[in-house]
């Protein structure tokens, strides 16, 4: 490329040639000089030997005859030669001659090897007659050798110089100049425009030609590669712009961060979501003000360690009292870099949390609901198993009636108000929740003394029982409380709730408006009830049930017109069990249907028997609310009477007012159906419930039975008597028959008889008795009543 380089190449080539020539030449010269020295010496000795050959015959003679003169003559002749320095000749007798050059005595040795020959007789070549010794002149020989070496060195030197010059010229011509030319052309070559490099003139076919071709090929490839690279870069720039635009304008926040959380790049959305200034630099994402600083750092570490993407919802505190939920999805993009996509999920998160709160909150009162309560206190028990507390279940009494009478909006208001009242009765760290319906639960932490629990409970009951104003009217509710203590009455929440419910049931059954603490006896009672329920299931088939009959008489004539059948259970273990104790149980367990059918069949059988015996009695059976309409379908009734061959008019069906208060449509239909079939209907216990005259009008009832409570307290002047009288008069005007229940003394009998009540039953007349003790009148006087439905005494 430049002259310096060229000179340098020339210089290096020439100096290399010269130095190699010098070294090789020097070595060759050393070897040659040694060869030359050796050769010169050998030549000298050869010449001396030849010299000895020429004088041999004379020396033989001299030695043969021992002639000193002749020997000296020979020796002198030998010394004429420059290479000989001394000669000595011996016969076998004596020394014949010893001569040295320049008078020097002939010395043996020095560095020259003496030449010695034995001398044979001239006439007998086997007999030795003497010897001749010749000492070469080493100085002369050395001079000759040196001279030969010098010659050789000069020749060699000249040869090296000649070769060096020839090589240098050749290299200059064959290498340096073409390279130089090629380099100049290469320097001015414009490969991009397709120009081709030309080989130096005269070198087209040799290595320079090949080199030129190779360079052309290479430059062609390079140009092509650069072109491709340019195209790629242009494409890349377009892509980059595209992605940059997507990145910048994305709705989601996008960032790229290192393994310690330092942000290397992020878009506008990210800055907006995280509340950073427009173009943040040098920000550590882990310290943006997350609710939990470590969470993002841990995510990044996990993401990088496991080489997989992951996502989590993180809470960011933007400003005091302003929170934002961000969904952060991380993806590893290299060994120590992650890419994150951030979206704002605050709204979703809030609605989720709302829904969560809703799920555990009672929307009406704002108190926790059963779910929330159970969640919280199950955890509480699990977390602090040794912390005692008391659990109260509060039940409002009479709420259903308010709801029914005044509608749900009023009921809701009442519930809200009651919830608020409960809250006022307890301390701040106590818990109130609504379990559902009209049931609330209160937790009193750290309370262990029964007296304290009772005190709080009574306070709550008293508060709840206070009157309140609804639609301008005073109203009041009762409340009962059942309490259970943790851990004494149960180790877990379900047990505590159940036990508190038991205590509550106890409180309610003892009249309400009171509080009961749970005790183990309640469990036993329940277990007893369960046992009874199981026994009841088999009572009918085991023949443990019996029907007793309480006669009904016409008050005016005191004549028996029929009876009410009352069920009795003769339990093998517990003796006679009254219906009050097992009928509710039978209703709960569903056995009531089976029992009802048994009663129907038994009563019909009894009627058939009386009919066969000539007695024209009517018999009533009690039908519970649970049996209507499907437990005792009209078809079953008509089947039974048909089977026993009795008229449906003989059988009366007693229902209570509560039946009418239930599902009035189906009850109505059932009543219509049975009456159409000829059965008569009785309204039992009239006056105890929410007796409404509208029932009498709406439902097809034949007879009403006035509850014994009215009869019991009836004296000549009491209100009850007035009421009974009113009922009798009203029934008369509605064409309903009236039966008075519970007549226990003659006074009651007389009063009723006088006020026009037609029929009556009670201990005064007869207790309920088994069929065999039934006080049958004498057959002769037994009247025959043909007409129906009214019970008309004969």
């Amino acid at each position: 490329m430049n002259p310096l380089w060229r000179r340098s190449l020339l210089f290096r080539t020439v100096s290399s040639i010269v130095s190699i020539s010098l070294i090789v030449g020097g070595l060759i010269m050393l070897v040659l000089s040694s060869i030359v020295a050796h050769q010169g010496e050998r030549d000298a000795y050869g010449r001396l030997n030849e010299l000895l050959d020429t004088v041999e015959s004379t020396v033989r003679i001299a030695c043969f005859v021992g002639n000193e003169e002749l020997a000296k003559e020979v020796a002198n002749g030998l010394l004429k030669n420059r290479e000989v320095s001394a000669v000595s000749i011996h016969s076998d007798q004596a020394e014949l001659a010893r001569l040295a050059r320049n008078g020097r005595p002939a010395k043996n040795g020095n560095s020259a090897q003496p030449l010695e020959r034995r001398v044979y007789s001239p006439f007998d070549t086997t007999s030795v007659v003497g010897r001749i010794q010749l000492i070469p002149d080493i100085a002369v020989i050395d001079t000759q050798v040196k001279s030969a070496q010098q010659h050789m060195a000069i020749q060699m030197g000249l040869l090296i110089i000649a070769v060096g010059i020839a090589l240098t010229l050749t290299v200059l011509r064959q290498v340096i100049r073409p390279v130089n030319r090629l380099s100049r052309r290469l320097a001015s070559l414009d490969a991009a425009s397709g120009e081709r490099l030309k080989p130096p003139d005269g070198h087209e076919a040799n290595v320079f030609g090949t080199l030129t071709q190779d360079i052309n090929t290479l430059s062609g490839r390079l140009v092509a590669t650069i072109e491709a690279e340019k195209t790629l870069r242009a494409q890349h720039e377009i892509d980059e712009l595209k992605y940059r635009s997507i990145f910048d304008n994305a709705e989601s926040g996008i960032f790229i961060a290192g393994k310690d959380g330092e942000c290397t790049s992020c878009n506008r959305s990210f800055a907006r979501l995280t509340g950073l200034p427009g173009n943040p630099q040098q920000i550590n994402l882990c310290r943006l003000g997350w609710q939990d600083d470590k969470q993002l750092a841990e995510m990044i570490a996990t993401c990088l360690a496991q080489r997989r993407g992951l996502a989590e919802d993180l809470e960011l505190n933007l400003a005091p009292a302003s929170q934002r939920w961000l969904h952060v999805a991380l993806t590893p993009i290299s060994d120590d870099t992650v890419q994150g996509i951030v979206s704002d999920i605050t709204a979703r998160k809030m609605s989720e949390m709302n829904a969560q709160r809703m799920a555990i909150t009672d929307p009406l009162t704002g108190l926790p609901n059963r779910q929330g309560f159970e969640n919280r206190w199950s955890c509480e028990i699990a977390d602090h198993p040794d912390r005692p507390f008391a659990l109260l279940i509060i039940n409002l009494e009479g709420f259903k009636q308010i709801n029914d009478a005044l509608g749900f909006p009023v009921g809701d208001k009442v519930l809200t108000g009651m919830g608020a009242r409960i809250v006022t009765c307890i301390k701040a760290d106590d818990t109130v929740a609504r379990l559902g319906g009209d049931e609330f639960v209160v937790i009193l932490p750290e309370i262990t003394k029964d007296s304290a629990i009772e005190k709080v409970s009574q306070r709550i009951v008293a508060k709840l029982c206070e009157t309140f104003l609804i639609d301008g009217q005073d109203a009041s509710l009762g409340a009962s409380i059942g309490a259970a203590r943790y851990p004494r009455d149960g180790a877990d929440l379900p047990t505590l709730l159940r036990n508190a419910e038991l205590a509550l049931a106890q409180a309610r059954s003892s009249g309400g408006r009171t509080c009961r603490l749970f005790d183990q006896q309640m469990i036993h009672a329940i277990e007893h009830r369960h046992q009874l329920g199981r026994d009841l299931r088999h009572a009918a088939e085991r023949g443990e049930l019996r029907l007793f009959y309480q006669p009904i008489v016409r008050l005016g004539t005191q004549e028996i017109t029929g009876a009410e059948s009352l069920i009795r259970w003769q339990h093998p273990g517990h003796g006679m069990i009254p219906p009050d104790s097992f009928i509710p149980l039978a209703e709960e367990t569903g056995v009531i249907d089976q029992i009802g059918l048994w009663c129907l069949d038994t009563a019909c059988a009894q009627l058939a028997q009386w009919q066969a015996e000539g007695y024209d009695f009517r018999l009533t059976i009690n039908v519970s609310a649970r049996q209507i309409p499907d437990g005792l379908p009209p078809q079953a009734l008509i089947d039974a009477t048909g089977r026993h061959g009795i008229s449906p008019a003989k059988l009366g069906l007693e229902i209570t007012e509560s039946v009418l208060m239930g599902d009035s449509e189906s009850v109505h239909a059932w009543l219509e159906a049975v009456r159409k079939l000829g059965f008569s209907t009785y309204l039992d216990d009239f006056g105890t419930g929410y007796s409404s005259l509208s029932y009498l009008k709406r439902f097809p009832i034949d007879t009403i039975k006035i509850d014994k409570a009215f009869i019991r307290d009836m004296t000549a002047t009491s209100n009850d008597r007035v009421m009974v009288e009113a009922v009798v008069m009203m029934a008369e005007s509605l064409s309903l028959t009236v039966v008075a229940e519970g007549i226990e003394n003659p006074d009651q009998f007389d009063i009723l008889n006088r006020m026009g009540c037609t029929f009556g039953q009670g201990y005064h007349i007869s207790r309920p008795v088994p069929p065999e003790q039934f006080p049958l009148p004498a057959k002769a006087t037994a009247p025959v009543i043909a007409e129906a439905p009214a019970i008309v005494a004969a």
Partner: protein
Amino acid sequence: MLRRVLTCLALFACCTMLQAADIVVVVRSDSEIGILERSDVINIFLGRFRKLQSGGHVEPLDLPAHSSECEHFYQRLIGKTPAEINAYWARLLFTGRVFPPRAMDSQERLLDTLLGNPRAIGYLERDKVDRRLRIVYEMSGP
């Protein structure tokens, strides 16, 4: 007949030649010189020694160089012609120290000299030898 004569003549000639070659080295019969080896004869006649090992002096006598006896003697002894022997002596003569054996004119003269000098030693044809002489060395073969 002629052929037979010729063959006889050839045989004779051969016998004569053999006869002529039979030369012996002799001394006077009372000479102290005993039987000699070939090397002794060479040493004595070619100038190396002129003394015996016993210490007695010896004088070799030669026949004329052109005589056939001389030629035969040297030819038989050392394989050299009389010319070569002459050249040999020529090289030595100029030193003046050694001399060739004294040459006798004829065999008779040599015989006389031998008889007259007990120290003399010479060579003769065998048939010239008589009782006065004693053979000290016989040429073996031609």
